[in-house]
């Protein structure tokens, strides 16, 4: 297994280490529910260094990305402005989901998932051959996500110089302070920053954040937080056989520029013309029990499946994202441990800024 530059820090904090996509990562540091609540109520931090930042540079950077991904980088015009997008294959299926940051017309940064890094880079490199660009994985960067209502203020306390540069930073925007790249993004539904920094600075930055009162949080909490926030996980809600249109990610597909023929565009347009058959909805269980991935779902108009199931610490109930026939509403049944149990169909997100919305 690979280890990030923060491995020792995790061990010191009592991290329970597990294999995540070939990386030895902390599942929790004692209680994932405690860590979840810490992010909802205060500030927690995640080592996300296993993810990969890739710098795309060159004269054709913009042109290349306009072809490569389903959302339109043409919308990004200010340094640091970011968007979330899926990267599709020719059939319209999702190769990965990612965030792109605009730095200038010849320089973008994309952040891709850990479990798909190798596959993504193979694809990106082969697609880049036709363009005047360089594809440069940033192997010397570590990444720390600091999330929660007090995440920003505690980051300012922990790291000198950040507040001066980032005070006016809007959500989905980034700024640089020397070798530190600060993005106001996250995967929790709370306010916060994702920091990209040189590996050798990771340990002492983590320590400074600890001293400022930010608690370490593991992958277990990361999953319950993102599910409460209604955010998709690659491999669960979408994969190479599922298009963004069938994963309730139509909002990440920008078809408005008819001259932009991105990879997978034709397939998506055909799908739309045929009529979409399935979509992703949220489910809430009123009774006891935890919803689990792949459990079968039965609606009044057809069958589906749980794509991500868990327990919501904020709500005190089980919640899930599920793939169901388009038009499913109100109630459905989930097959849980040999019994069919009723669940309510809702529109995610379940929780934002610590407030239950459903």
């Amino acid at each position, binding site marked *: 297994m690979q280890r990030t530059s923060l491995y020792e820090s995790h061990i010191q904090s009592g991290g329970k280490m597990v294999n995540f996509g070939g990386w030895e990562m902390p599942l*929790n540091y004692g*209680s*994932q*529910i405690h860590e979840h609540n810490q992010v909802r109520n205060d500030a927690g931090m995640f080592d996300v260094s296993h993810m990969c930042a890739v710098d795309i540079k060159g004269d054709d950077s913009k042109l290349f990305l306009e072809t490569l991904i389903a959302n339109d980088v043409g919308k990004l015009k200010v340094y640091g402005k970011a968007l979330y997008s899926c990267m599709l294959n020719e059939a319209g299926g999702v190769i990965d989901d990612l965030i792109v940051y605009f730095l200038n017309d010849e320089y973008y940064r994309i952040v891709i998932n850990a479990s798909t890094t190798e596959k993504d880079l193979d694809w990106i490199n082969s697609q880049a051959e036709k363009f005047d660009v360089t594809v440069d994985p940033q192997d010397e960067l570590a990444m720390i996500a600091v999330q929660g209502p007090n995440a920003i203020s505690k980051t300012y306390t922990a790291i000198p110089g950040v507040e001066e540069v980032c005070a006016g930073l809007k959500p989905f925007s980034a700024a640089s302070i020397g070798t530190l790249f600060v993005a106001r993004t996250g995967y929790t539904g709370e306010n916060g920053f994702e920091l990209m920094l040189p590996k050798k600075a990771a340990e002492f930055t983590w320590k400074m954040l600890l001293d400022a009162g930010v608690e370490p949080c593991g992958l*277990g909490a990361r999953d*319950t937080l993102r599910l409460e926030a209604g955010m998709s996980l690659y491999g669960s809600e979408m994969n190479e056989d599922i298009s963004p249109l069938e994963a309730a990610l139509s909002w990440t597909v920008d078809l408005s520029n008819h001259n932009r023929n991105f990879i997978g565009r034709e397939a998506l347009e055909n799908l739309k013309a045929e009529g979409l058959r399935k979509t992703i909805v949220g489910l809430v269980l009123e009774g*006891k*029990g*935890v919803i*689990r991935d792949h459990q079968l779902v039965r609606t009044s108009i057809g069958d589906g499946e749980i794509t991500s199931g*868990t*327990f919501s610490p904020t709500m005190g109930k089980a919640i899930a994202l599920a793939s169901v026939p388009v038009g499913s509403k109100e109630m459905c049944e989930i097959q849980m*441990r040999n019994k069919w149990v009723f669940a309510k169909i809702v529109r995610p997100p379940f929780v934002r800024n610590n407030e239950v919305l459903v």
Partner: protein
Amino acid sequence: MSEVRQDRQYTQTHEWVLDNGDNTYTLGISDHAQELLGDMVFVELPSQGDEAQMQDELCVIESVKAASDVYAPANLEVLEVNESLEDEPELLNSSCYDDGWLIKFSADSVDDLMDASTYEQSLDSE
């Protein structure tokens, strides 16, 4: 290292049985079990008066990570269940040998269980 209480016996499936000395026994799960399962969120307990045969599924404990069955360590009758677990399933994590007890039962015989040091050894070899 998980804690193994010396004053009780254990099953292969990580339950503990405490002889209360008054012809009743108490059942719970070991520290090893609660550690493996992680944060507990739901507990399904039997009812007072229920009878079970050895190895029958008696309770279901569910953590964020997984659901797990708790098995009857003997042919028994349920005398009392720990109602606190309804609102505070986390007692199974914080106090698995004390406040996190599952049920109290009566049984004609409770045998074939491991004593504490045998259980400890079985964990070391896992």
